[in-house]
């Protein structure tokens, strides 16, 4: 779907909306923060020999998304799935190779300056800023890049430093900050410019439990205080996505596989039986017929070899299938050490959709750190 209507809003900028989402009355749908239409991105990677044809990597393919204003929307997927590519396109750092994307009704390909006034981005493991400057000096510098008056910038810096508990460290050089404190400063940097849409790219990467909890709480409180603002979060932490997001899209190898609320996604597996099993080591790789997947009624299996045992995660069509699985294991010379039946998690949803665990790296087949 690519039919769009154009509107001019009171600040003089032209904005667009998709006809299907303009509520049938030919009005700009101001409730939509982000829309993508068959969005795609292909990378051409050249090898060391210039004469060789470039290798083509499909990082995104046919992505259609509608994110509403006020939503905390999550993109969940493994490394190399295309999450970062999507965020880079929406934040105007990268052009799509096909399709179209609108941010606040502005086209990411052509209305770059207007979009940049309204967005910000925070990435996990960020090392931005200048080590010689103090926390408040760095924040002041970035605030000025967004056109905030010096006085307003200082006022907002004070407010936000107090909120995240960094006020006492405002005169500390940022080179002396720990990873967690530095990421808190990065969060202030991202929010100080009063954005309407914030892109959070793996924001809790490398943080300890408490620091991760603090930054999550900060984002959630910001959305409560500013209900018309939007956050797009990419993560490969299931619990983070489950806890924070109003809606989630599961993405793998550049394609959206599912999109719904975390509850509804988990409900998809409500009828299935999910078990965690610990069994004696399964040993050598089985033939196709000997694989657990070959047992009738087994929907998905993930196998993790440990030092002294093997962990199995099973999604079965019905509980009764479990006895067949146990007989199968017995035939392979293994026996049960422990068994746990549990409620479906987002990880189960991911395994069900993709056929492997989230932490299995797919970057090699999908563009590495371009993902």
């Amino acid at each position, binding site marked *: 779907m690519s039919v769009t209507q154009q*509107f*001019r809003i009171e600040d003089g900028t032209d904005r667009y909306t998709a006809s299907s989402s303009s509520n049938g009355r030919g009005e700009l749908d101001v409730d939509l923060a982000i829309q993508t239409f068959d969005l795609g991105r292909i990378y051409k990677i050249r090898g060391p020999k210039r004469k060789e044809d470039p290798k083509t990597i499909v990082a995104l393919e046919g992505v259609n998304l509608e994110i509403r204003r006020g939503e905390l929307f999550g993109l969940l997927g493994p490394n190399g799935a295309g999450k970062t590519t999507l965020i880079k396109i929406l934040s105007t750092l990268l052009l799509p190779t096909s399709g179209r994307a609108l941010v606040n009704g502005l086209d990411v390909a052509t209305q770059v300056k207007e979009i940049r006034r309204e967005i910000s981005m925070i990435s996990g493991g960020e090392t931005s800023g200048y080590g010689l400057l103090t926390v408040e000096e760095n924040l002041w510098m970035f605030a000025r890049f967004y056109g905030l008056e010096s006085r307003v910038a200082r006022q907002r810096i004070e407010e936000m430093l107090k909120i995240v508990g960094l006020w006492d460290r405002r005169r500390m050089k940022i080179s002396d900050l720990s990873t967690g404190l530095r990421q808190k400063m990065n969060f202030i940097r991202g929010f100080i410019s009063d954005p309407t849409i914030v892109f959070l790219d793996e924001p809790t990467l490398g943080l300890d439990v408490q620091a991760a909890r603090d930054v999550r709480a900060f984002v959630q409180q910001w959305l409560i205080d500013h209900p018309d603002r939007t956050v797009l979060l990419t993560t490969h932490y299931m619990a983070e996505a489950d806890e924070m997001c109003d809606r989630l899209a599961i993405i793998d190898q550049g394609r959206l596989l599912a999109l719904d609320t975390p509850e509804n996604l988990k409900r998809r597996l409500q009828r299935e039986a999910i078990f965690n099993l610990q069994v004696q080591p399964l040993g050598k790789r089985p033939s196709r017929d000997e694989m657990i997947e070959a047992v009738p009624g087994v929907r998905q299996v993930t196998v993790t070899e440990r030092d002294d045992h093997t962990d199995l995660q099973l999604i079965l069509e019905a509980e009764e299938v479990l006895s067949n699985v146990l007989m199968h294991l017995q035939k392979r010379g293994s026996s049960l050490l422990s068994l746990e039946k549990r409620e479906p998690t987002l990880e189960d949803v991911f395994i069900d959709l993709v056929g492997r665990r989230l932490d299995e790296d797919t970057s090699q087949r999908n563009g590495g750190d371009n993902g």
Partner: protein
Amino acid sequence: MAESMLTDVAIRSTPRVEKARGFRLFWATVWARAYPRIVGATREMSWLFFETLLPLLSVAAYVFVYKAIGAPEDYIGFVVVGGAMTAFWLNVLWSMASQLYWDKDQGNLELYVLSPGPLTAILLGMAVGGLVMAGVRAVAILVVASLVFKVTYAVGSIPLLLLTFLLTMSALYGMGMMFASIFLASGREAWHLANLLQEPIYLVSGFYFPVKALGFWVATAASIIPLTVGLDAMRQLLFTSDPTLGFLSVEVELGILVVLTVVFISAAYFLLAKLEEIGRREGRLIERRR
């Protein structure tokens, strides 16, 4: 686009913070980016030793050679002025030309590009900050060396001297802004490029001797470096022995500096825009690889 319905539509929102646009945003960005360089000079004072004393050693070597061979007294002054100007050349090479590459590595470039502040304002801020930073070093070298080697200056026209200095700096930092894009595009080679340019420019720009000594054609080719003609013009305005030791007349050299300023700043503007376009199209150049 199938339809166009240009109507006034208001977007509902909670109160927004006022943000500058246009010229005000440009200058806010310039000063914000200049700030780390200006304030940075007061944070680690070790530069006083390394960046004043070490250039003085090079200056001293040439001074003793000139004294030993009985060169005209003004040659001592030439070396001192040239030694002071090395501060600007090193600053342009390592803190302007290489800066965007380092900023990319640190993750700052991505944030610069993402912000509404123009990239040209960021580069100009770097130049202004760098000029202040290098200016302090140059003055320190000039004062100490002039006292140690008892240099006598005979300034005819202070306004003309100031104009020459300002034009030299505009052209030099314009070149630094242009190099910043070139170095960024050249990736890891940036480090080698900077190394490659450092010492040869000392030679062909005549930092420690009158550039006229290189002969007309070499000196003409070297005039693409603003310091070559800028330094030559300043020496003519600072010492009595000229114009005999000068390469071209001061007026011609000022004309060359004006042309170089326009060319380098225009090229910097064009290259930056091109670089961002390539970065967005190819998915490289701007983003830090994680």
